[in-house]
């Protein structure tokens, strides 16, 4: 197992490198340059001044040279500074990551608990009223545009009922609150974002766990377990559930990068200071160092996520063993 993990980790180096080359290339293919926002239709700028800016940013060099400079810097774990404000890329990411992780772990926990509960219950009581209703609601949540749902919830809970704040991560007077009030304030601000982010994934995960469960429940060993006279609880949770987990672990592994990447739409709607907005702003501004920094880190974490999923397979399923 350990040698397997080590091998996988080693393989990641060329993979991450390949991903960064592709990211860099695609980024260069996108029309427009980082300096365009300053120079386009700016009547107060001479062409010499424009050229000077392009040189300061190092954009006058061919892309492979730019990439090579970037790789050399990253080898020393220096991701450079953002074009937007000259702050180190790594600081900017470190600043946003906690907020994104907080939101996404909460919503992932929410999704996991509710999706499994809905999935298992629907599978065990297949075609019951609950099964049909939950399917309906989950699909409505899945298909309705999230920004619209978010706005409706904001109007209801924020504007009409005045129970929750409309947007942001914390109140303006956050620093003046005591610890309990701070936690309460955060909880209030997080309620809607967590609910709305969870809504979209709830559908797929609950459907997956339902079908995985359905498949397992029909297996011979479940009949055997029942024949042994085990009570239904043990049959479902000990024998069936563990086997149904495998496809769900795959799905969770795939969801890991989202956890770090953050969702642009949610973060924008809720004025949430997370990674999604950082990345989106960097794309729109063609902030190359920022984009490459985020790209590399997300790529790396995705690969780690896949590896973790594989390791968890082995833990969940005794039939899977790595050499």
């Amino acid at each position, binding site marked *: 197992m350990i040698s397997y993990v080590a091998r996988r980790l080693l393989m990641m180096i060329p993979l991450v490198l390949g991903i960064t080359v592709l990211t860099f290339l695609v980024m260069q293919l996108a029309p*427009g340059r980082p300096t365009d926002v300053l120079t386009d239709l700016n*009547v107060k700028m001479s062409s010499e001044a424009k050229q000077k800016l392009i040189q300061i940013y190092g954009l006058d060099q061919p892309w492979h040279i730019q990439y090579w400079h970037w790789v050399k810097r990253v080898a020393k774990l220096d991701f450079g500074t953002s074009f*937007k404000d000259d702050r180190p890329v790594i600081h900017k990411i470190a600043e946003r990551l906690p907020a994104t992780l907080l939101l996404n772990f909460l919503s992932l926990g929410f999704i996991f608990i509710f999706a499994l509960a809905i999935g298992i219950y629907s599978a065990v009581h297949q075609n019951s009223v609950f099964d049909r209703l939950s399917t309906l609601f989950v699909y409505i949540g899945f298909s309705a545009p999230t920004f619209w749902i978010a706005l409706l919830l904001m109007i209801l809970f924020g504007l009409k009922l005045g129970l929750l704040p*409309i947007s942001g991560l914390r109140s303006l007077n956050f620093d003046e609150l005591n610890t309990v009030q701070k936690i309460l304030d955060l909880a209030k601000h997080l309620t809607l974002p967590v609910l709305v982010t969870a809504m979209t994934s709830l559908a797929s995960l609950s459907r997956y766990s339902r079908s995985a469960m359905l498949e397992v429940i029909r297996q011979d060993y479940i009949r055997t377990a029942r024949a042994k006279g085990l009570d239904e609880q043990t049959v479902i949770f000990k024998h069936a559930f563990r086997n149904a987990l495998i496809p769900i672990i795959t799905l969770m592994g795939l969801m890991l990068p989202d956890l770090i990447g953050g969702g642009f739409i949610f973060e924008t709607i809720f*004025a949430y200071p997370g990674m999604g907005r950082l990345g989106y*702003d960097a794309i729109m501004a063609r902030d190359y160092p920022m984009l490459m920094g985020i790209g590399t880190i997300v790529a790396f974490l995705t690969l780690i996520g896949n590896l973790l999923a594989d390791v968890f397979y082995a833990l969940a399923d005794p039939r899977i063993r790595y050499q």
Partner: protein
Amino acid sequence: MDDSFIESSIGDASYLNPVLASDSASSSINGLVYNGLIKTGPNIELIGDLAERWDISKDGLVFTFHLKKNVRWHDGEAFTSEDALYTYERLIDPAVKTPYSSNFDKIKKLEAPDSWTVKVFYKEPYVPALEAWGMGIVAKHVFGGATGKAFNEHPANKKPIGTGPYRFKEWKTDEKIVLEANSDYFGNKIHIARYIFRIIPDNSVEFLELRNKSIDTMTLTPDQYRAYDEFFKGYKKFRFPRAAYTFLGFNLKHPLFKDKAVREALAHAINKEQLVQGVVAGMGRSATGPFLPLSWAFNPDTKDFEYNPELARKILAGQGWKDSNNDGIIDNNGKNFEFTLITNQGNKMRSLSAEIIQQQLKLVGVKMNIRIIEWSSFIKNFVDKQNFDAIILGWTLSPDPDAYSIWHSSQRNEGQYNFISYENKEVDQLLESGRKEFNPNQRKKIYQKIHQLIHDDVPYVFLYYPDFLPVLHERFAGPVVVPVSSFGFGWNFDEWYVPKNKVRYPVLSAQ
């Protein structure tokens, strides 16, 4: 002195350093933290800020600024001419990422004969150079005299120390920036204790926050402005022209548009009233020329082309354009009057304008096709290369009316801004003298003349000036709409106050 003012912005600031920043979020903050040597007064005239007064030599080549002596930086150090010198040196520093270097490239040298005097020597007389000294002055001692890259990356760009009415307190990236009133401000006494700048990236959410009274001001879209009155309970709405105009420009090298009579006919065929209704829900006014209605450069006597499709048809017929084959499109020598108009993607108002104009021109038998192009390619492959028949675009204007780079015939090369290839010897000459004439009355005459001449030549059909639609919580007293408001609603924010009984966020008692 009490209460807080809560503003919001779609994007976060970049550098809290006026030399480096150009985005509107940073400028809002920098405008309150820093001062320039001069500033723009209520009637778009220049008045002293850090400079008490200034003299201009007879030949217009030397500006002498006499600085105020009682000005202190927020850290208590005295402001001197050294700081102005340092700021200038950074502006022309080849390694400093400033987008403003061109505003200072006509300077031969800058001297500080004593601590309170700055002398600027120019290579040629250039009036807009004066306006450029509205640039915020940064403190030499704060930056430790840093140059180049060190200046770009200096921590003071995140924790600014200025001379302005507000001191920097804190910045939570992508959440908020907080400023506090500077009780030692050299100008008038500041009344609003705290200024909070919230980042709300979505316009509809910003509007909900406004309805929830959690922000004090926002700039409305025309649709929002016309929403139910109950949404604006407790607010005051304002409406006045924004420092911008939208135009339809003809490529004057195109055979169809070489003839001025044809351009005039098209101007008569475009119903600007209908356009303003359709595009900005009536929140704008039809434009007559390149200068703003509230500016002194605007010529109030310029009479716009009246909307008259009959007349348009008659003029076109006079030029040989008649619908001889009855296909609904006028033609001349077997060629239909057909052209393609381009505009950029992502600007709904421009594409909507194009569609409305398309319908209006159809009425006089002109076939106009529309092509909408992604911004980068639009600029690089079409505008810069002058590769279009007609174009819809807009200009944002600065307080000084100098429009040399847009209208002078020397500015027709690839990548320059006279991309429609306009040429009028008289306008050229006026634009040149407008840059050299320091007498405000003479200048006014020059620019009003330019306004009229350009209108008469119809190189653009000046479509409309969009309105600026700010809304403000009613507790604030002090905002007034004057000509300079077009460039910023909060131009006199340092004079605003909240009557004692209306304070909403008591700051002093909470401390």
